[in-house]
Protein backbone atom coordinates (compact mmCIF):
# COMPACT_ATOMS: atom_id res chain seq x y z
CA UNK A 1 0.00 0.00 0.00
CA UNK A 2 1.41 3.37 -0.94
CA UNK A 3 1.70 6.42 1.29
CA UNK A 4 -0.71 8.31 -0.93
CA UNK A 5 -3.36 5.59 -0.46
CA UNK A 6 -2.91 5.65 3.33
CA UNK A 7 -3.35 9.40 3.41
CA UNK A 8 -6.54 9.12 1.39
CA UNK A 9 -7.99 6.44 3.68
CA UNK A 10 -7.17 8.53 6.80
CA UNK A 11 -8.90 11.56 5.33
CA UNK A 12 -11.90 9.45 4.44
CA UNK A 13 -12.10 8.04 7.98
CA UNK A 14 -11.95 11.52 9.43
CA UNK A 15 -14.71 12.66 7.12
CA UNK A 16 -16.75 9.57 8.07
CA UNK A 17 -16.37 10.42 11.77
CA UNK A 18 -17.48 13.97 11.02
CA UNK A 19 -20.44 12.60 9.09
CA UNK A 20 -21.29 10.28 12.02
CA UNK A 21 -21.21 13.22 14.43
CA UNK A 22 -23.32 15.36 12.09
CA UNK A 23 -20.61 17.92 11.60
CA UNK A 24 -20.54 18.00 7.75
CA UNK A 25 -22.34 20.58 5.66
CA UNK A 26 -25.06 19.50 3.29
CA UNK A 27 -22.80 19.10 0.21
CA UNK A 28 -20.16 17.08 2.05
CA UNK A 29 -22.89 15.04 3.70
CA UNK A 30 -24.43 14.22 0.29
CA UNK A 31 -21.03 13.32 -1.08
CA UNK A 32 -20.39 11.05 1.96
CA UNK A 33 -23.73 9.31 1.52
CA UNK A 34 -22.87 8.66 -2.12
CA UNK A 35 -19.51 7.31 -1.07
CA UNK A 36 -21.15 5.01 1.52
CA UNK A 37 -23.39 3.52 -1.14
CA UNK A 38 -20.46 2.94 -3.39
CA UNK A 39 -18.04 1.73 -0.73
CA UNK A 40 -19.33 -1.18 1.40
CA UNK A 41 -16.20 -1.17 3.55
CA UNK A 42 -16.84 2.43 4.46
CA UNK A 43 -20.48 1.58 5.28
CA UNK A 44 -19.21 -1.16 7.53
CA UNK A 45 -17.01 1.32 9.37
CA UNK A 46 -20.05 3.53 9.89
CA UNK A 47 -21.89 0.55 11.34
CA UNK A 48 -19.00 -0.03 13.72
CA UNK A 49 -19.18 3.52 14.89
CA UNK A 50 -22.92 3.20 15.57
CA UNK A 51 -22.37 0.03 17.44
CA UNK A 52 -19.69 1.60 19.64
CA UNK A 53 -21.99 4.53 20.49
CA UNK A 54 -24.78 2.22 21.54
CA UNK A 55 -22.42 0.27 23.75
CA UNK A 56 -21.06 3.38 25.51
CA UNK A 57 -24.46 5.10 25.93
CA UNK A 58 -26.09 1.94 27.10
CA UNK A 59 -23.40 1.39 29.72
CA UNK A 60 -23.81 4.91 31.13
CA UNK A 61 -27.57 4.53 31.32
CA UNK A 62 -27.13 1.18 33.01
CA UNK A 63 -24.81 2.74 35.59
CA UNK A 64 -27.29 5.57 36.21
CA UNK A 65 -30.04 3.06 36.78
CA UNK A 66 -27.88 1.35 39.41
CA UNK A 67 -27.69 4.57 41.55
CA UNK A 68 -30.46 4.30 44.17
CA UNK A 69 -33.16 6.92 44.44
CA UNK A 70 -32.14 7.77 47.99
CA UNK A 71 -28.74 8.84 46.82
CA UNK A 72 -30.32 11.37 44.50
CA UNK A 73 -32.36 12.70 47.35
CA UNK A 74 -29.25 13.07 49.50
CA UNK A 75 -27.51 14.92 46.76
CA UNK A 76 -30.51 17.17 46.30
CA UNK A 77 -30.77 17.82 50.03
CA UNK A 78 -27.12 18.76 50.07
CA UNK A 79 -27.78 21.19 47.26
CA UNK A 80 -30.71 22.67 49.14
CA UNK A 81 -28.71 23.09 52.36
CA UNK A 82 -25.94 24.79 50.50
CA UNK A 83 -28.41 27.10 48.86
CA UNK A 84 -30.09 27.92 52.17
CA UNK A 85 -26.75 28.63 53.84
CA UNK A 86 -25.77 30.90 51.04
CA UNK A 87 -29.14 32.59 51.28
CA UNK A 88 -28.80 33.19 55.03
CA UNK A 89 -25.32 34.60 54.62
CA UNK A 90 -26.62 36.90 51.98
CA UNK A 91 -29.53 38.01 54.19
CA UNK A 92 -27.22 38.61 57.16
CA UNK A 93 -24.94 40.70 55.04
CA UNK A 94 -27.89 42.78 53.94
CA UNK A 95 -29.68 42.90 57.38
CA UNK A 96 -30.74 46.38 58.62
CA UNK A 97 -28.94 47.86 61.71
CA UNK A 98 -30.33 46.85 65.11
CA UNK A 99 -31.95 49.17 67.66
CA UNK A 100 -28.74 50.23 69.41
CA UNK A 101 -27.03 50.98 66.13
CA UNK A 102 -29.98 53.09 65.09
CA UNK A 103 -30.02 54.89 68.46
CA UNK A 104 -26.32 55.56 68.23
CA UNK A 105 -26.82 56.78 64.74
CA UNK A 106 -29.54 59.13 65.97
CA UNK A 107 -27.45 60.28 68.91
CA UNK A 108 -24.31 60.87 66.93
CA UNK A 109 -25.23 64.43 65.94
CA UNK A 110 -26.21 65.05 69.56
CA UNK A 111 -22.86 64.29 71.08
CA UNK A 112 -22.44 67.90 72.10
CA UNK A 113 -25.80 68.09 73.92
CA UNK A 114 -25.02 64.78 75.62
CA UNK A 115 -21.65 66.11 76.75
CA UNK A 116 -23.37 69.24 78.06
CA UNK A 117 -25.87 67.15 80.02
CA UNK A 118 -23.09 65.03 81.48
CA UNK A 119 -21.10 68.09 82.43
CA UNK A 120 -24.18 69.59 84.05
CA UNK A 121 -24.65 66.41 86.07
CA UNK A 122 -21.05 66.57 87.28
CA UNK A 123 -21.42 70.23 88.18
CA UNK A 124 -24.62 69.41 90.06
CA UNK A 125 -22.79 66.74 92.03
CA UNK A 126 -19.96 69.10 92.91
CA UNK A 127 -22.48 71.74 93.90
CA UNK A 128 -24.38 69.27 96.07
CA UNK A 129 -21.13 68.21 97.71
CA UNK A 130 -20.17 71.81 98.41
CA UNK A 131 -23.57 72.44 99.97
CA UNK A 132 -23.23 69.36 102.11
CA UNK A 133 -19.75 70.33 103.35
CA UNK A 134 -19.63 72.66 106.33
CA UNK A 135 -18.77 76.26 105.70
CA UNK A 136 -16.38 77.17 108.47
CA UNK A 137 -16.18 80.81 107.52
CA UNK A 138 -19.85 81.68 107.53
CA UNK A 139 -21.61 79.50 110.03
CA UNK A 140 -24.79 81.33 110.97
CA UNK A 141 -25.16 79.17 114.03
CA UNK A 142 -21.63 79.73 115.23
CA UNK A 143 -21.32 80.17 118.92
CA UNK A 144 -19.90 83.29 120.39
CA UNK A 145 -16.54 83.52 122.01
CA UNK A 146 -14.50 86.20 123.65
CA UNK A 147 -14.89 89.44 121.83
CA UNK A 148 -12.34 92.21 122.43
CA UNK A 149 -14.81 93.77 124.81
CA UNK A 150 -15.14 90.47 126.58
CA UNK A 151 -11.42 90.09 126.84
CA UNK A 152 -11.06 93.54 128.26
CA UNK A 153 -13.85 93.04 130.71
CA UNK A 154 -13.13 89.45 131.58
CA UNK A 155 -13.13 89.13 135.28
CA UNK A 156 -12.77 86.14 137.52
CA UNK A 157 -15.90 84.71 138.98
CA UNK A 158 -17.52 86.57 141.78
CA UNK A 159 -15.65 84.67 144.40
CA UNK A 160 -12.39 84.54 142.51
CA UNK A 161 -10.62 87.10 144.69
CA UNK A 162 -11.37 85.11 147.80
CA UNK A 163 -9.61 82.03 146.47
CA UNK A 164 -5.93 82.05 147.28
CA UNK A 165 -5.12 79.53 144.55
CA UNK A 166 -6.44 81.78 141.87
CA UNK A 167 -3.99 83.05 139.34
CA UNK A 168 -2.13 86.14 140.43
CA UNK A 169 -1.55 87.52 136.90
CA UNK A 170 -5.24 87.52 136.16
CA UNK A 171 -5.94 89.55 139.27
CA UNK A 172 -3.15 92.06 138.90
CA UNK A 173 -3.36 92.68 135.15
CA UNK A 174 -6.85 91.94 133.97
CA UNK A 175 -6.39 93.17 130.41
CA UNK A 176 -4.39 90.91 128.09
CA UNK A 177 -1.68 89.41 130.23
CA UNK A 178 -4.01 86.95 131.96
CA UNK A 179 -5.33 85.73 128.66
CA UNK A 180 -1.83 84.83 127.51
CA UNK A 181 -1.03 83.20 130.81
CA UNK A 182 -4.20 81.18 130.89
CA UNK A 183 -4.13 80.12 127.27
CA UNK A 184 -0.47 79.59 126.36
CA UNK A 185 -1.29 77.29 123.46
CA UNK A 186 -2.46 79.31 120.46
CA UNK A 187 -4.29 76.23 119.15
CA UNK A 188 -6.67 76.39 122.07
CA UNK A 189 -8.03 79.85 121.21
CA UNK A 190 -11.69 79.82 120.57
CA UNK A 191 -12.74 79.75 116.95
CA UNK A 192 -16.37 80.82 116.85
CA UNK A 193 -17.04 79.33 113.46
CA UNK A 194 -15.98 75.82 114.36
CA UNK A 195 -19.06 74.67 116.21
CA UNK A 196 -22.62 74.96 115.00
CA UNK A 197 -25.63 75.49 117.20
CA UNK A 198 -25.50 72.73 119.82
CA UNK A 199 -28.11 70.06 119.72
CA UNK A 200 -29.92 68.98 122.85
CA UNK A 201 -29.53 65.44 124.02
CA UNK A 202 -28.76 63.33 127.03
CA UNK A 203 -25.20 62.31 127.71
CA UNK A 204 -24.45 58.85 129.02
CA UNK A 205 -22.47 58.99 132.25
CA UNK A 206 -20.25 55.91 132.59
CA UNK A 207 -18.57 56.88 135.82
CA UNK A 208 -18.63 59.96 138.00
CA UNK A 209 -17.11 61.03 141.28
CA UNK A 210 -17.51 64.33 143.07
CA UNK A 211 -14.20 64.71 144.83
CA UNK A 212 -14.73 66.40 148.15
CA UNK A 213 -17.93 68.10 147.01
CA UNK A 214 -21.57 67.38 146.54
CA UNK A 215 -23.08 66.86 143.16
CA UNK A 216 -26.12 65.64 141.35
CA UNK A 217 -26.96 64.56 137.86
CA UNK A 218 -30.11 65.90 136.28
CA UNK A 219 -31.73 66.46 132.96
CA UNK A 220 -32.88 69.94 132.02
CA UNK A 221 -35.90 70.10 129.77
CA UNK A 222 -35.68 72.93 127.30
CA UNK A 223 -37.94 73.84 124.43
CA UNK A 224 -35.64 72.04 122.01
CA UNK A 225 -34.93 68.96 124.06
CA UNK A 226 -33.23 67.52 127.08
CA UNK A 227 -29.74 68.45 128.24
CA UNK A 228 -27.66 66.59 130.81
CA UNK A 229 -26.56 68.81 133.69
CA UNK A 230 -24.02 67.84 136.38
CA UNK A 231 -24.58 70.10 139.37
CA UNK A 232 -21.58 70.63 141.62
CA UNK A 233 -21.52 72.60 144.83
CA UNK A 234 -18.18 73.74 146.09
CA UNK A 235 -19.27 75.10 149.44
CA UNK A 236 -20.19 71.81 151.06
CA UNK A 237 -17.10 69.97 152.26
CA UNK A 238 -18.79 66.60 152.49
CA UNK A 239 -17.71 63.89 150.06
CA UNK A 240 -19.90 61.93 147.81
CA UNK A 241 -19.08 59.52 145.06
CA UNK A 242 -21.35 57.80 142.70
CA UNK A 243 -20.54 55.48 139.90
CA UNK A 244 -22.95 54.57 137.19
Amino acid at each position, binding site marked *: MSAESNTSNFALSEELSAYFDGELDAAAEAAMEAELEANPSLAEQLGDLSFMREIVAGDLELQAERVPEARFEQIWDSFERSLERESRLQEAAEAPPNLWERLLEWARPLRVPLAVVGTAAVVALVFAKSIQAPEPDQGP*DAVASNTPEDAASDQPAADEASTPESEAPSLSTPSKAPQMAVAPNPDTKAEPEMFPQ*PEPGEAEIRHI*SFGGRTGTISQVE*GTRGTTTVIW*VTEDVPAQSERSL
Partner: protein
Amino acid sequence: MTMHAKILASTLASCLAVPVALTGASLVLLAPAQADAAVSDATCRIHAVEATETGDGTIPKDLGFLKDQLEAPEFARYKSFRLLESKDFKLTLNTVVEERFKSGHSVKLSLLGGDKDKLELSTDLMRSGTSLVNMNFSMRSNQIVLIPVRRSDSMVIFAYQCKAG
Protein backbone atom coordinates in the same frame (compact mmCIF):
# COMPACT_ATOMS: atom_id res chain seq x y z
CA MET B 1 -32.23 63.63 61.06
CA THR B 2 -35.90 64.20 61.69
CA MET B 3 -37.33 66.20 64.56
CA HIS B 4 -38.80 63.00 65.94
CA ALA B 5 -35.37 61.44 66.06
CA LYS B 6 -33.90 64.49 67.79
CA ILE B 7 -36.59 64.43 70.45
CA LEU B 8 -36.05 60.72 70.96
CA ALA B 9 -32.30 61.19 71.30
CA SER B 10 -32.70 64.06 73.75
CA THR B 11 -35.08 61.99 75.84
CA LEU B 12 -32.63 59.13 75.80
CA ALA B 13 -29.83 61.45 76.90
CA SER B 14 -31.93 62.76 79.77
CA CYS B 15 -32.85 59.25 80.84
CA LEU B 16 -29.19 58.30 80.88
CA ALA B 17 -28.05 61.42 82.70
CA VAL B 18 -30.49 61.06 85.60
CA PRO B 19 -29.31 57.60 86.72
CA VAL B 20 -25.71 58.70 86.31
CA ALA B 21 -26.32 61.76 88.47
CA LEU B 22 -28.20 59.74 91.08
CA THR B 23 -25.49 57.12 91.20
CA GLY B 24 -22.81 59.75 91.58
CA ALA B 25 -24.78 61.56 94.25
CA SER B 26 -25.26 58.31 96.13
CA LEU B 27 -21.54 57.65 96.03
CA VAL B 28 -20.79 61.15 97.21
CA LEU B 29 -23.31 61.00 100.02
CA LEU B 30 -22.46 57.49 101.13
CA ALA B 31 -18.72 57.96 101.07
CA PRO B 32 -18.60 59.99 104.30
CA ALA B 33 -20.81 57.41 106.00
CA GLN B 34 -18.20 54.78 105.33
CA ALA B 35 -15.70 56.92 107.19
CA ASP B 36 -17.65 56.59 110.46
CA ALA B 37 -15.09 54.27 111.87
CA ALA B 38 -13.46 54.63 115.25
CA VAL B 39 -12.52 58.22 115.85
CA SER B 40 -8.91 59.08 116.62
CA ASP B 41 -9.21 62.77 117.36
CA ALA B 42 -11.82 65.27 118.40
CA THR B 43 -12.26 68.93 119.15
CA CYS B 44 -14.12 70.16 122.20
CA ARG B 45 -15.07 73.64 123.20
CA ILE B 46 -15.77 74.44 126.83
CA HIS B 47 -17.54 77.68 127.62
CA ALA B 48 -17.31 79.15 131.10
CA VAL B 49 -20.44 81.16 131.92
CA GLU B 50 -20.88 83.14 135.08
CA ALA B 51 -24.38 83.19 136.49
CA THR B 52 -25.46 85.55 139.27
CA GLU B 53 -28.73 86.06 141.09
CA THR B 54 -29.00 89.74 140.31
CA GLY B 55 -30.05 91.11 136.97
CA ASP B 56 -32.99 91.36 134.64
CA GLY B 57 -32.75 87.83 133.37
CA THR B 58 -31.64 88.87 129.91
CA ILE B 59 -29.47 86.34 128.16
CA PRO B 60 -26.78 88.10 126.14
CA LYS B 61 -26.36 87.44 122.46
CA ASP B 62 -23.09 85.63 122.84
CA LEU B 63 -24.90 83.07 124.96
CA GLY B 64 -27.69 82.57 122.49
CA PHE B 65 -26.55 79.01 121.88
CA LEU B 66 -27.35 78.23 125.53
CA LYS B 67 -30.60 80.18 125.69
CA ASP B 68 -32.78 77.09 125.61
CA GLN B 69 -30.98 75.59 128.60
CA LEU B 70 -30.52 78.78 130.63
CA GLU B 71 -34.21 79.57 130.39
CA ALA B 72 -35.10 76.23 131.94
CA PRO B 73 -36.68 76.34 135.42
CA GLU B 74 -33.55 74.84 136.96
CA PHE B 75 -31.71 78.08 136.19
CA ALA B 76 -34.56 80.42 137.07
CA ARG B 77 -32.79 81.44 140.27
CA TYR B 78 -30.11 83.16 138.26
CA LYS B 79 -30.90 86.45 136.60
CA SER B 80 -27.66 87.38 134.92
CA PHE B 81 -25.37 85.39 132.69
CA ARG B 82 -22.01 86.35 131.28
CA LEU B 83 -19.69 84.41 129.03
CA LEU B 84 -16.33 84.43 130.73
CA GLU B 85 -14.36 82.60 128.07
CA SER B 86 -14.37 79.69 125.68
CA LYS B 87 -11.52 77.28 125.24
CA ASP B 88 -10.96 74.70 122.56
CA PHE B 89 -9.42 71.33 123.28
CA LYS B 90 -7.70 69.48 120.46
CA LEU B 91 -7.94 65.89 121.56
CA THR B 92 -6.20 62.79 120.37
CA LEU B 93 -6.98 59.35 121.60
CA ASN B 94 -6.11 58.73 125.26
CA THR B 95 -4.18 61.98 125.61
CA VAL B 96 -5.11 64.34 128.42
CA VAL B 97 -5.36 68.02 127.57
CA GLU B 98 -5.60 70.51 130.42
CA GLU B 99 -6.70 74.10 130.26
CA ARG B 100 -7.00 76.64 133.02
CA PHE B 101 -9.87 79.10 133.13
CA LYS B 102 -9.90 82.61 134.48
CA SER B 103 -12.44 81.56 137.02
CA GLY B 104 -9.69 79.62 138.74
CA HIS B 105 -10.95 76.28 137.52
CA SER B 106 -8.98 73.92 135.37
CA VAL B 107 -10.34 71.22 133.12
CA LYS B 108 -8.66 68.00 132.05
CA LEU B 109 -10.22 66.38 129.06
CA SER B 110 -9.30 63.28 127.10
CA LEU B 111 -10.79 61.28 124.28
CA LEU B 112 -11.39 57.63 125.12
CA GLY B 113 -12.93 56.52 121.83
CA GLY B 114 -16.19 56.59 119.96
CA ASP B 115 -17.06 57.31 116.40
CA LYS B 116 -17.95 60.29 114.27
CA ASP B 117 -21.37 60.71 115.85
CA LYS B 118 -20.72 59.71 119.42
CA LEU B 119 -17.63 60.42 121.48
CA GLU B 120 -16.39 58.72 124.61
CA LEU B 121 -14.71 61.27 126.86
CA SER B 122 -13.20 61.66 130.28
CA THR B 123 -13.01 64.94 132.17
CA ASP B 124 -11.78 66.19 135.48
CA LEU B 125 -12.97 69.61 136.59
CA MET B 126 -10.73 70.96 139.30
CA ARG B 127 -10.20 74.00 141.38
CA SER B 128 -7.10 74.68 143.39
CA GLY B 129 -5.79 71.25 142.52
CA THR B 130 -8.85 69.55 143.97
CA SER B 131 -11.16 67.60 141.80
CA LEU B 132 -14.72 68.83 141.82
CA VAL B 133 -16.08 66.24 139.45
CA ASN B 134 -14.39 63.46 137.56
CA MET B 135 -16.41 61.49 135.07
CA ASN B 136 -16.34 59.33 132.00
CA PHE B 137 -19.19 59.97 129.65
CA SER B 138 -20.33 59.75 126.07
CA MET B 139 -22.04 62.45 124.11
CA ARG B 140 -23.10 63.02 120.54
CA SER B 141 -21.30 65.44 118.30
CA ASN B 142 -22.38 69.02 118.92
CA GLN B 143 -24.40 67.99 121.92
CA ILE B 144 -24.08 70.10 125.07
CA VAL B 145 -23.31 68.90 128.58
CA LEU B 146 -23.46 71.43 131.40
CA ILE B 147 -21.52 71.36 134.65
CA PRO B 148 -22.66 74.25 136.88
CA VAL B 149 -20.34 74.80 139.83
CA ARG B 150 -22.25 76.63 142.59
CA ARG B 151 -20.51 78.84 145.06
CA SER B 152 -22.68 80.90 147.46
CA ASP B 153 -24.82 83.25 145.39
CA SER B 154 -23.04 82.77 142.07
CA MET B 155 -22.27 79.96 139.77
CA VAL B 156 -19.89 79.16 136.94
CA ILE B 157 -21.40 76.95 134.30
CA PHE B 158 -19.04 74.88 132.17
CA ALA B 159 -20.68 73.93 128.90
CA TYR B 160 -19.01 71.07 127.02
CA GLN B 161 -19.49 70.79 123.28
CA CYS B 162 -17.49 68.29 121.21
CA LYS B 163 -17.22 66.96 117.71
CA ALA B 164 -15.10 64.36 115.99
CA GLY B 165 -12.03 65.44 114.06
